[in-house]
């Protein structure tokens, strides 16, 4: 049987097993790199050229998502190419001019060529390079650019969805032309570029042997000519890879990684070690210590399991190696992800706060750090001490953590970011041993908390959140402090639980003028302040239809200088068809919760005190209000905070779908329309205006429909008919009205009912 290794069997249906970490899929959830709390900040090591590589591969593809901006230009191929040209011209031309010409339209370049040959100017150029060519100078450069443009279509990725392949014959012709042009050219810089094109064409045509041969013949000794050499080497590395010569591929990719920022990602992507023998062979190809260091870095980067071994090797070579520090940074980050809780879901009230973590992995990294520190040869002492302190913190060794942080702080000097990290770890480390709250504990931790809440980035903020979560656990019996600490730890939304919220206790706390320093801190950081709490109280009261009480509470907001929450529409307005957005957009006046309370109270009084049409009108308006302040109306926000039913405990989930609750006769339920129904019925009965009566009957029918939705009854004809009594009434008693005809026109349910029942 054939040697199966001849072809690379790629992953197939049996092997694509892991659901992708779809940070960019339809639904939103945390990116790979931010899925857990991360109080340890990778950016405390200052290696801007390798900043991209602190994180997972996801960051390489999608860029930085944190607060610290990447410099994307550092890795741009276009920028690097322009730099090569700038070096070629020895800085004589600004990069903007070079870029304009190198990436000019080929037709413009062709015109410049013709100008240069004929010494005529077909158009005026302000670009000095173009002017140079128009004078007939440096035409070999222009000739090269024209050739390069000719090559471009053959080295680009084809349409994925086409089975078309490149025109290999033309590519071979161009390859040979490049070789000929290289031989004819005198200028070493341009010769090197022709060599690059020849090697590139061979590579993209899949002629990897040719690619390697051309490199040997044309590019091997051009490192001193221009850094374009590393792009040629990248192609050579790729050819070795595709020939299965992994040791050579790895070695050359390491060189490319070190010397070409633009090709760094590709070098990393193509770095592959299949066996120990390959690894030893790659190492044996290194000519000096720096090459070894890069190789170790890439091996430790590509396979996180190999990182400890690689760090140990780098430590032996050079404790000050930035490659080592990068791997340490990544390893500490990996450990952080492994042992710190997941965002939002990871902080459980029934589990201890950050239990001490012990593992071979932590121990091994700590050994490396201690060995590096002991050598006295590391460049960034604060970084090493801080990383060590972080591991001590994770392990629960508070004393060692403190000691390491003390040294780190001394060494960090004015490095703000490092000092931040130290503060974060100090605060968390202090909290570890705290098992109860008293004045002395509060005094100890408050300064740290005050620093952390002003975190400059998400890492510092994560430390703050973890600290607040510990405080939550310490204050779990105290509803006010527990609420505030949890709010800060997990960004809770108090309004989402407004019906179960300790609003009176919270208001009392926020009115207290004699708070302790810690309590004052909690007061200041909480997401809601006194007016918000009063609004919540009033909303609860309105929810339970305690209108007088709600008025009094809302008045407290006004008396305190605050504003009562506005509604988006006047709930006394109603239409056949519910369109909240339409009502909100059409509404131009001002209507707030206080207006609502006043309207209800005055209309209820009118209902009590009047008769006939006046009473009917009042009933109608009350029907409108009670309809509109329910879940189904345009002023739902009057008595609750969220329209989305996921914020309510009103429904259940049976594993497949949401189920509306069985109606439980709760008049305070946001879904309840019985009161609206009552008033509409009253209005219809009281009025002598048949059109008005018919309209109220239709509005009552809307209430019935909503009641059907929340009834939980099976969706069948019998159930439907149970909730069509007002439809029936409209048809039987008001067939002669305009409302009847309008209802058929506007309401498909009524039209269907009329036609079928």
């Amino acid at each position, binding site marked *: *049987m*054939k040697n*199966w290794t001849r*072809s*690379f*069997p*790629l*992953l*197939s*249906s*049996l*092997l*694509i*097993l892991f*659901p*992708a970490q*779809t940070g*960019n*899929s*339809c639904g939103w959830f945390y990116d790979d790199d931010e899925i857990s709390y991360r109080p340890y900040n990778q950016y405390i090591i200052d290696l801007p050229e390798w900043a991209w590589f602190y994180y997972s591969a996801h960051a390489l*593809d*999608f860029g930085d998502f944190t607060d610290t901006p990447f410099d994307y230009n550092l890795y741009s191929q276009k920028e690097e190419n322009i730099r090569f040209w700038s070096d070629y011209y020895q800085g004589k031309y600004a990069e903007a001019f070079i870029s304009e010409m190198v990436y000019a339209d080929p037709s413009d370049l062709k015109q410049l060529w013709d100008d240069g040959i004929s010494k005529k100017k077909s158009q005026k150029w302000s670009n000095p390079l173009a002017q140079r060519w128009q004078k007939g100078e440096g035409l070999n450069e222009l000739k090269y650019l024209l050739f390069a443009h000719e090559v471009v279509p053959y080295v680009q990725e084809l349409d*994925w*969805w*086409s*089975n*078309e392949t490149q025109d290999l014959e033309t590519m071979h012709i161009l390859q040979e032309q490049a070789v000929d042009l290289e031989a004819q050219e005198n200028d070493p810089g341009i010769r090197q570029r022709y060599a690059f094109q020849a090697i590139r064409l061979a590579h993209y045509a899949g002629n990897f042997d040719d690619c390697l041969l051309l490199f040997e013949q044309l590019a091997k000794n051009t490192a001193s000519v221009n850094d374009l050499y590393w792009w040629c080497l990248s192609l050579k590395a790729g050819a070795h890879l595709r020939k299965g010569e992994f040791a050579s591929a790895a070695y050359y990719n390491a060189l490319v990684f070190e010397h070409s920022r633009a090709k760094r990602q590709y070098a990393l992507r193509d770095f*592959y*070690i*299949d*066996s*120990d023998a*390959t*690894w030893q062979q790659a190492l044996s190809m290194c000519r000096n210590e720096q090459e070894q260091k890069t190789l170790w870095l890439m*091996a430790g980067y590509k*396979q996180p*399991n*190999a990182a400890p*071994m690689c760090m140990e090797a780098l430590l032996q070579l050079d404790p000050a190696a930035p490659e080592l520090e990068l791997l340490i940074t990544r390893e500490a980050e990996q450990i952080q992800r492994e042992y710190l809780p997941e965002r939002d879901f990871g902080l459980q009230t029934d589990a201890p706060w950050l239990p001490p973590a012990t593992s071979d992995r932590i121990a091994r990294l700590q050994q490396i750090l201690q060995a590096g520190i002991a050598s006295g040869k590391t460049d960034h002492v604060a970084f090493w001490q801080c990383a060590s302190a972080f591991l001590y913190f994770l392990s629960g060794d508070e004393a060692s953590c403190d000691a390491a942080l003390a040294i780190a702080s001394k060494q960090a000097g004015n490095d703000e970011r490092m000092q931040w990290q130290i503060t974060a770890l100090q605060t968390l480390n202090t909290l570890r041993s705290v098992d109860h709250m008293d004045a002395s504990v509060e005094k100890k931790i408050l300064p740290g908390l005050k620093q952390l809440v002003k975190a400059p980035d998400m890492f510092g903020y994560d430390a703050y959140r973890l600290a607040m979560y510990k405080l939550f656990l310490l204050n779990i019996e105290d509803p006010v402090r527990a609420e505030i600490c949890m709010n800060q730890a997990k960004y809770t939304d108090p309004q989402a639980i407004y019906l179960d919220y300790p609003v009176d206790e919270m208001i009392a706390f926020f009115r207290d003028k004699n708070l302790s320093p810690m309590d004052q801190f909690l007061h200041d950081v909480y997401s809601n302040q006194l007016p918000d709490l009063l609004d919540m109280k009033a909303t609860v009261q309105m929810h339970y239809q305690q209108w007088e009480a709600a008025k009094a509470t809302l008045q407290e907001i006004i008396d305190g200088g605050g504003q009562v929450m506005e509604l988006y529409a006047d709930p006394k307005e109603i239409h056949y068809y519910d369109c909240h957005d339409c009502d909100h957009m059409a509404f131009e006046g001002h209507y707030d919760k206080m207006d609502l309370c006043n309207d209800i109270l005055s209309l209820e009084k009118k209902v009590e005190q009047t008769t006939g049409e006046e009473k009917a009108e009042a009933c109608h308006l009350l029907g409108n209000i009670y309809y509109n302040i329910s879940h189904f109306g345009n002023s739902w926000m009057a008595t609750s905070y969220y329209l989305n039913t996921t914020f309510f405990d009103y429904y259940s989930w049976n594993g497949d779908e949401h189920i509306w609750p069985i109606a439980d006769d709760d008049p305070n339920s946001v879904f309840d329309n019985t009161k609206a129904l009552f008033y509409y019925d009253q209005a219809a009965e009281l009025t002598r205006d048949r059109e008005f009566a018919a309209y109220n009957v239709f509005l009552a029918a809307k209430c019935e429909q909503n009641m059907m939705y929340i009834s939980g009854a099976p969706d069948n004809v019998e159930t439907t008919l149970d909730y069509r009594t007002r439809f029936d009434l409209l048809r039987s008693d008001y067939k002669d009205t305009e409302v009847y005809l309008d209802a058929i026109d506007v309401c498909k349910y009524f039209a269907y009912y009329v036609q079928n029942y």
Partner: protein
Amino acid sequence: MHRPVSRAFFVLFIPIFWAWSSCADKQQEVIRSFYHWQTTLDLSTEEIQELSSLGVHDLYVKYFDVIWDEEAAQPRPVAKLQTVQVPDELSIHPVIFLTNETLEHLDMDGVNDLAWRMCKLMDQIHTGLSKDPPAIIQIDCDWTAGTRDKYFQLLKQMQTYKRFEETIWSATIRLHQYAYPQQTGVPPVDRGLLMFYNMGNIEDPDAAHSIYDPSTAEAYLKQTDHYPIPLDAGIALFSWGLYFHHRELQQIFYPLYADELLKESLFTTVDDTHFAATGEGYFRGRFVQPGDTIRIESMSPELGLKSAEQLSPYLHDHPLSVILYHTDPVILQHYTHEELDSVFSAFE
């Protein structure tokens, strides 16, 4: 007057009776087939002869996979079939594997567009192999409740592609989809291919055999009396190694047999199917650490036959295609001709 039994009775009835009883003993028609899952199709003369001697004239060849490209935010074909030498003796049936994740990212417009692209690419590849359109096309996708509607729409849309109007369409059916068609839906195709493998939890470090477990299989098979569309049978022959680091599945080494690990100094034998790393080092491109484990799961000839014998009574839609996975020489060298023949024969 007593009439003797008509001579015609003996002339006609007995032969008819004989013919009927012969029909009752006649073998069920089984179309013996193989999957070809590599990106090159270049079977050796010996391989073609072996297939021929087994009575295999149908090859289900994976033309490409469709995955979701995160960076480009669109579906992408990968592992396209490259070098192809089409043996005259074999009929080639295209197979496309589609990840469920791809469907998750698409809306219905995207699904319809994808259907067209898949057909077009498949057509281009197939045109290089044969002047006739494919007789059968198979789509392989482990759809879920969330992607069912989109997947079924994709299948329907693909079937409107003009050149494939006469083609028989097939879709792979996993055991859980077979067992619960009301919940999972039945794909709108002519036939299903019941994948009688990969029935366990591959990520469970304590699982015995995630490829084939008779009791798990039986539990699924008993759920359904009759699947709504005719089914063909897919039987696995392969062996793989599941690599666990800290009890988490990190990689699948495929194919991998125990005899390779027995020769590997980096690993020590725990039992027949489990191996533990004793040191640090590279194994097949993976850096392993002490304590890491590999669990070998093999479809031995005995298990292959057992799975075929277990499945056979449940499939009645003859002529029935029995497709063995797959033509990788590394896999086939672990089976004799007789052993392969017996797997097919289990369905006949």
